[in-house]
C-alpha cells in the first residue's frame, strides 16, 4: 500500500503543532546539566525558569515561545515505497490545517521578504526539503520551525583553501556577532564544504542532531568539543545576561568539494524545536521525537 496525501498532511500538521509545545528530551537533559554546572546566580535562576517553562508548556499544552516562526520540514523518502497523491501539497495543506485548528492560536509570522507584509501563507511556505533513503520502505519527516530570534544570526562565508584555524576563527566571529541575542544557550550547527547551498544545509541539519552525540569522524568530533568549550568561555550565558553556558552543543558536518570552502553557521535557540515521525509503507505512523 502507498503512503497517501492524507497521511502526510496529518503528520505535517501534527509535527508542527507538537514542536511548538514540547522541548525535546535531549535539550531538557542538556539544560539540567547546564544548571548543575552553572556558577552565576542570575543564570542559575534563568535556567531554573527555562526548565520550569518547558515543563509548563508540555503539561498545559501551551506554546513554549509566542514566536511560532515558520515551519521547515526535512523529508527522507525511502526508495522502496510508493506514494499516492500530491505529497508537496500535503505539507502546504497540513500547515493550513494547523493554523485553523491549533489552540491557543498562532500569530501571523509568514513574512513577504520584499514588502514585509505578514500572513499565514506564502510563496514556498512551508519550506520543505526532500531527500531519498536508499532501500528504505518508509518516509521520515523532521519538523523544525524557525523563528526570528535565533534565525537572524546565521551566516555563511566562502573561503579558499582555509586552514582549520580560519574556519574555527570564523565560527567564533559568528558567535561574537550573535552575542547575547539568539536566546542562548543555543545549539550551533556548522556546515563546511561542498557548494554554497550544501554548506548551509549541512549546518541546518547539524542543529537537528541529538545533543550528546558526536560526529563519526574523530577529527570532526574533536572540533565539536573544542569549539563548544571555546564558545562557553565567552561568558554570554543563558539569555545573554552572563554565565557559563552560551551553547548546549556545537555540531559540525562537512562535504568534500573543490578548493573553495563555504562555511555556514546557524543557531537554534534554547527551546531547540524539533519533532520527527516515520511513516511506513502502508501508512502506519511512528513518532520518533
Amino acid at each position, binding site marked *: 500500500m502507498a503512503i497517501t496525501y492524507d497521511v502526510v498532511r496529518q503528520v505535517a500538521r501534527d509535527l508542527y503543532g507538537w514542536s511548538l509545545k514540547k522541548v525535546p528530551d535531549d535539550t531538557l537533559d542538556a539544560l539540567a546539566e547546564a544548571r548543575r554546572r552553572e556558577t552565576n546566580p542570575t543564570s542559575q*535562576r534563568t535556567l531554573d525558569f527555562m526548565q520550569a517553562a518547558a515543563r509548563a508548556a508540555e503539561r498545559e499544552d501551551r506554546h513554549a*515561545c509566542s514566536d511560532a516562526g515558520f515551519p521547515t520540514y526535512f523529508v527522507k523518502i525511502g526508495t522502496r515505497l510508493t506514494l499516492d497523491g500530491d505529497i508537496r501539497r500535503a505539507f502546504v495543506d497540513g500547515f493550513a490545517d494547523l493554523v485553523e485548528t491549533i489552540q491557543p492560536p498562532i500569530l501571523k509570522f509568514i513574512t513577504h521578504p520584499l514588502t514585509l507584509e505578514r500572513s499565514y501563507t506564502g510563496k514556498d511556505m512551508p519550506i520543505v526539503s526532500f531527500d531519498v533513503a536508499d532501500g528504505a520502505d518508509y518516509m521520515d519527516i523532521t519538523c523544525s520551525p524557525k523563528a526570528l530570534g535565533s534565525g537572524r544570526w546565521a551566516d555563511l562565508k566562502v573561503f579558499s583553501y582555509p586552514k582549520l584555524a580560519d574556519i574555527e576563527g570564523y565560527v567564533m566571529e559568528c558567535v561574537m556577532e550573535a552575542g547575547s541575542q539568539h536566546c542562548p544557550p543555543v545549539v550551533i550547527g556548522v556546515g563546511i564544504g561542498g557548494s554554497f547551498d550544501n554548506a548551509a544545509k549541512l549546518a541546518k541539519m547539524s542543529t537537528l542532531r541529538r545533543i550528546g552525540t558526536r560526529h563519526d569522524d574523530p577529527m570532526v568530533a*574533536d572540533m565539536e568539543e573544542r569549539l563548544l568549550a*571555546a564558545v562557553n568561555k565567552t561568558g554570554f550565558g543563558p539569555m545573554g545576561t552572563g554565565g557559563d553556558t552560551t551553547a548546549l552543543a556545537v555540531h559540525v558536518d562537512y562535504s568534500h568539494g573543490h578548493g573553495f570552502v563555504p562555511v555556514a553557521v546557524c543557531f537554534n535557540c534554547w527551546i531547540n524545536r524539533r519533532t520527527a515521525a516515520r511513516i511506513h509503507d502502508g501508512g502506519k505512523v511512528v513518532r520518533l521525537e
Partner: protein
Amino acid sequence: MSDGSPPDLRRLTLPLSRDEARSLKLGDTVILDGEVTITAGFPTHQRMAEALDRGEPLPFPKAGSAFFHMGSSCRAEGDRWVTNYVNPTTSTRFDDTMPGIIRRLGLTATGGKGGMGRACVQALRDVGGVYFSMPGGASPLLSIGAVERLETAWDDLIEQFRLSRFRLEGFGPVTVAIDAHGNSMYDALQGQASARMPRILEELEQARQASAARRAKTAGDGR
C-alpha cells in the same frame, strides 16, 4: 508569581518613578505589577517615531511610562481580553527608532530580550530609565503575569504589532540588564568576550595541535 522563581524577589509597580528606576542595579531580578504598553512590531515603531517627529500625541504609551518589546495573543471573555500568551522579542531590531522614543516619552522602563544598542543606553541614562531582560521561549510562565489586555490602538495592524496596554500582576522574574546610569550588561559581556577572545583562540590552537597529535599517534599505533 510563576513557579521556577524564588519567592523573595523585589516587586515593583509600573510605571516606575524616576527615583525607583535610578535605584535599580544591573543584575537586579524583580517581579513586576502595574501597567505596560507592548508591541512586537517594526512598523509600529516607525509609526510611533513619525508621530512623535510631527509632534502628534500617541494613544499610549504615555510620558514616563513603561513600554516593552513583546508579542501577544488574547481572547475575549465577556467584556475582558484575557491573555493567551505573551513573549519578548529581540529589542535590537528597534535600535533605530528607540532612542527617540525613549527620549520623547521619557520612558522609565523598557524591555524585551537581547538588549539594545549604545544610543538607546545613552537615551535611558539621559531620561532615567531601565531596560528589563525577559527570558525568551518561556512563554507559559511569563504569560501568567500578563493578566489582562486593557486596550489596543492602531488596530489596522496585525495583533502582535498593535499597541497593546496590559495589566501585569506578578510578571517575571525580569532582570535589569541596562540601568539608568549608562551601564549595559550586554556591552559589559561583549567587552568581556572580546577581551577573552585572544586567549580563547590560543586555547583552540592548542586543542587543535593536541587533537592532531592524538590522531597521528592512533595512526602510528595502527600501522
